[in-house]
């Protein structure tokens, strides 16, 4: 089994449009798919699940849709809090959280604090996240440390940058498997540094229709691949 699975949950709005429903219905259906996936990951012993819930680029969507998404995320997190405890799920949130509504920022701090001792599954939610910004903030943090004399410039290497990426919140920062739904064949600025050797699995299924069968197919495909991480056999 992969230790870390990452998912780009794409297709909620298209799902709703196909059914003549408002975009909000698509996002709500997407939440149901996410609940199912989290449950499967817990059952099947996957250690880390990362989901790309809201990209930094998504801020340019309509105010109405962004506002709805922010309140949906808040409602879902509050509703699932007891479940996180019961199922042993540790929640971590990565991204530029300074752009989120203040209420949501406070809620995220609370949830991370409340669930930090849970160890069955680490659930990483990427909100207002950009892979390039992740690399830059890692460099900025190292810059501060160099300025404060904590690191010598000549000691800076790839490992140091990796330690400062926002995925340093987990023991398994590099996804083994990345799933993207809705038929798009790109990573859209998600975990750019971290996915060098990640198995990429693109599904044409829209996110609200992604369920157990599709997840099994992705896992089977992962297990069949011969991965060498840039080395030799």
């Amino acid at each position, binding site marked *: 089994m992969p230790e870390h699975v990452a998912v780009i949950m794409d297709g909620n709005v298209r799902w709703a449009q196909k059914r003549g429903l408002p975009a909000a219905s698509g996002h709500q259906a997407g939440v149901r798919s996410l609940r199912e996936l989290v449950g499967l990951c817990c059952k099947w012993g996957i250690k880390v699940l990362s989901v790309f819930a809201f*990209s*930094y*680029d*998504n801020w*340019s*969507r309509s105010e109405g849709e962004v506002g709805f998404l922010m309140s949906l995320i808040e409602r879902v997190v509050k509703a699932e809090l007891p479940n996180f405890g019961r199922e042993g799920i540790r929640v971590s949130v990565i991204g530029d959280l300074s752009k989120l509504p203040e209420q949501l920022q406070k809620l995220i701090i609370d949830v991370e604090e409340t669930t930090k001792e849970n160890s069955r599954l680490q659930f990483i939610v990427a909100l207002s996240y950009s*892979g*390039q*910004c992740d*690399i*830059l*903030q890692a*460099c*900025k943090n*190292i*810059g*501060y440390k*160099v*300025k404060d004399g904590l690191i010598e*410039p000549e000691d*800076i*290497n*790839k490992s140091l*940058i990796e330690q400062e990426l926002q995925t340093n919140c987990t023991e398994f920062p590099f996804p083994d498997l990345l799933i993207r739904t809705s038929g*798009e*064949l*790109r*990573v*859209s*600025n998600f975990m*750019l*540094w971290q*996915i*060098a*050797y*990640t*198995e*990429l*699995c*693109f599904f044409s299924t829209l996110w609200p229709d992604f369920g157990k069968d599709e997840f*099994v*197919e992705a896992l*089977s*495909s992962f*297990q*069949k*691949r*011969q*991965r*060498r991480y*840039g080395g*030799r*056999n």
Partner: protein
Amino acid sequence: MDFGDEVQKVYCWISHIGSLGLKVLWHFLHFIVSVWFLARQAAYVLESCFISSGLLKRYEALNLGNLRYLAIVIESEEAHQIPKVIELLNWLATIGVKHVCLYDNEGVLKKSKEAILEKLTDATLFEGVDENNLLLDQEHITLEFASISDGKGAVTKAANILFMKYLKSADSGGSSAESIFTEPHMAEALKAVGCRGPDPDLLLIYGPARCHLGFPAWRIRYTEIIHMGPLKSMKYGSLLKAIYKFSMVHQNYGT
């Protein structure tokens, strides 16, 4: 033997049967998925033959307007098959692709740069051009060669340039970290360390695993990625289909 031992025996027996049953079920599921993949592969090969033979008309006139820069990632062991690489590049030239970045993790293609350029007619080395100035109507194909040192290694070197700028600026009470560590500054610093290639529009992966093997991460934010299978099984029809599919894509860029 008492009742407890009998119950224990039955429990063990049920547990073994259950475990065996689960193993059989798992292998059966794997078998079904394998058959499905095999059938899909056969259909893929057949379709590729039809495309190569020109039977499927829609692949005849490709619109390459959106394909300004193409990246090819080849698994390093397969990258030693230089004749295959040259054949692939000739196919791309025939299709009309003008700018290609060839990448493999270990730099095998970089080391074979001269041999590759010699065998291709009208191919030149990529000199580094602004993304907006990539010419699509030039006669020759330009080639960029990249390896792992142009990926994370290059970002580390570029970051060092920004660190030096930041330290200098902090000492003189100048710019803050926020104004130094920005995307445009990182892009400039990458050019300064020799990574002048633009973001590819399309990335084709030739190899057993469906991953990009460390292709410069900074450059693939919105790049379409297609896994083509092993280089030894490459097909002209599959290449045409991949480029055709790309030409039909519309990107929202998150909006």
